[in-house]
């Protein structure tokens, strides 16, 4: 069971990545590759600060802020310097690779004895349980460390989801969604679309970096390579979420992204257990997203072809 609860936890943590990708790709229709650098940046900042003794909460917040700065940079490259969106993200992602190495001073920072959010959650759970080594989550017996981190992630993601939903219901958040939906219209209503894009990408990459910060603390290390393939990973989660929910309502879409992330991680865990070579994982994920992207059009054209045949 430990593997599956681990998959749940990682799925929950990476749902922050999915939410970030949802904001940039879906709300702003902006193919933001910064994601791959900012998830590593979040992990790097958090791990490095933890090693020098900063409290886990502050290290995590710092990770978020780092990601927000990275996202804002991409937004500025795109809006102020008129660089293509994809290229802006690639530039920042590439720069972040060096920055991440600089921050860590090496390519990998282990978190062995440091106090992290994971160990904090474990301590709290242990004291609540009066020292039992196992406890019960939805009927599963799980170790305190895994269970505590799972419950913590669940509460944390629920909180972030609610805050995000609330934000997108404010005047500022609504204007941001409108900037993604119809820039010409919101400009004519007096909003500065450039600022909306910069702010939106900052928020998106802040969330992505938050995922990185939590992931590093849960897995016990930060690694400069950990961001590779994460954009596609996040997209896969968002697409699965949309398929699960099938509704354009904002609240449900946020829930969908979280569910998609968890389901995707569970599928991966099961596939790996069934003997899938981990090296093939990214190829399979990319293929999955490719199919999910072309399938709706393919089905529609098949349908209209059929209609034509029957009409003839």
């Amino acid at each position: 069971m430990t593997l599956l609860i681990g998959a749940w936890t990682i799925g929950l943590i990476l749902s922050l990545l999915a939410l970030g990708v949802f904001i940039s790709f879906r709300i702003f229709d902006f193919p933001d590759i910064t994601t791959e650098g900012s998830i590593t940046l979040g992990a790097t900042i958090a791990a490095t600060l933890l090693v020098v003794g900063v409290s886990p909460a502050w290290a995590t917040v710092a990770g978020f802020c780092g990601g927000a700065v990275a996202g804002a940079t991409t937004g500025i490259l795109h809006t102020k310097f008129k660089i293509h969106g994809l290229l802006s993200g690639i530039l920042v992602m590439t720069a972040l690779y060096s920055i991440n190495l600089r921050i860590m001073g090496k390519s990998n920072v282990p978190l062995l004895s440091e106090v992290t959010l994971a160990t904090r959650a474990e301590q709290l759970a242990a004291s609540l349980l009066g020292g039992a080594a196992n406890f019960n989550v939805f009927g599963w017996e799980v170790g305190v460390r895994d269970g505590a981190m799972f419950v913590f992630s669940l509460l944390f993601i629920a909180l972030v989801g609610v805050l995000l939903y609330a934000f997108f219901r404010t005047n500022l958040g609504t204007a941001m969604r409108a900037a993604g939906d119809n820039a010409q219209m919101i400009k004519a209503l007096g909003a500065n679309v450039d600022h909306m894009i910069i702010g939106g990408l900052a928020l998106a990459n802040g969330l992505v970096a938050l995922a990185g910060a939590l992931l590093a603390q849960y897995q016990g290390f930060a690694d400069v390579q950990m961001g590779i393939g994460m954009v596609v990973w996040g997209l896969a989660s968002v697409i699965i979420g949309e398929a699960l929910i099938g509704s354009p309502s904002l609240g449900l879409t946020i829930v969908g992204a979280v569910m998609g992330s968890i389901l995707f991680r569970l599928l991966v865990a099961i596939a790996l257990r069934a003997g899938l070579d981990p090296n093939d994982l990214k190829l399979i994920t990319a293929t999955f997203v490719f199919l999910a992207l072309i399938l709706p059009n393919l089905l529609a054209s098949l349908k209209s072809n059929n209609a034509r045949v029957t009409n003839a």
Partner: protein
Amino acid sequence: MLEIRGIAKTFNPGTLNEVRALQGVDLTIQEGSFVVVIGTNGSGKSTLLNAVAGTFLVDTGAIRLAGTDVTRWPEHRRATLIGRVFQNPFSGTAPHMSIAENLSLAARRGRRRGLGWSLPRIFTDQLGEHVRRLSMGLEGRLDNAIGSLSGGQRQALTLLMATWLKPQLLLLDEHTAALDPKSADQVIRLSEEIVSRDRLTTLMVTHSMQQATSLGDRLIMMHRGRVLHDLQGSEKRRLRVDDLLARFEEVRRGELLDETAADMLKQTYV
């Protein structure tokens, strides 16, 4: 009051695609005046409205609105003073957002957008009443996405949005051209109603001679990036569709003359 002084705009200057869309336009529009703009295709009507709205900055000249020089202001800043309805019904509304949300965006046109709720009760309570006045049957569908509405319904909503906060200037660019005749009629009646109720200073481009003669207190006819005719007062009131057609015919003949002159020059010199 809108004051336009000698504005000019050339697109793609110095290239093969160079277009001198505005070639020195002077226009003063008094507060509360409703000005109809007509002209042949490509005569610069939309460019004039875009120049005023700040879609681009003009090459030369100055634009003052409500006593402020807005010549260098970016579009979103001018939107604090200007309400706008586009020709394309898809341009003025956010399709994936609800009617209520679109209106809430309009209710903060040019104001700070902070962390207050976009749809507080006090706002949604008054929505139904405003939307009912459009007579488009939308009052019961405030939570529906705009994407599900017809072009006429969208234009009516865009009009309501553009005027939700009373603008110093209302810009209407052939806002009924893409609609079926019945919806076009409805939207024109609404426009007239709102403009006269709020005494809005209005600049409306139209392709319809009918609208040009029956609406507004002043008419300007554009040609090749300039104002060719400017009719006000009794001259505008007496104007009939036939008079307008005659003026267009005049322009057309002028063009023909130009062409024959060009041909002659070609034959002589080339």
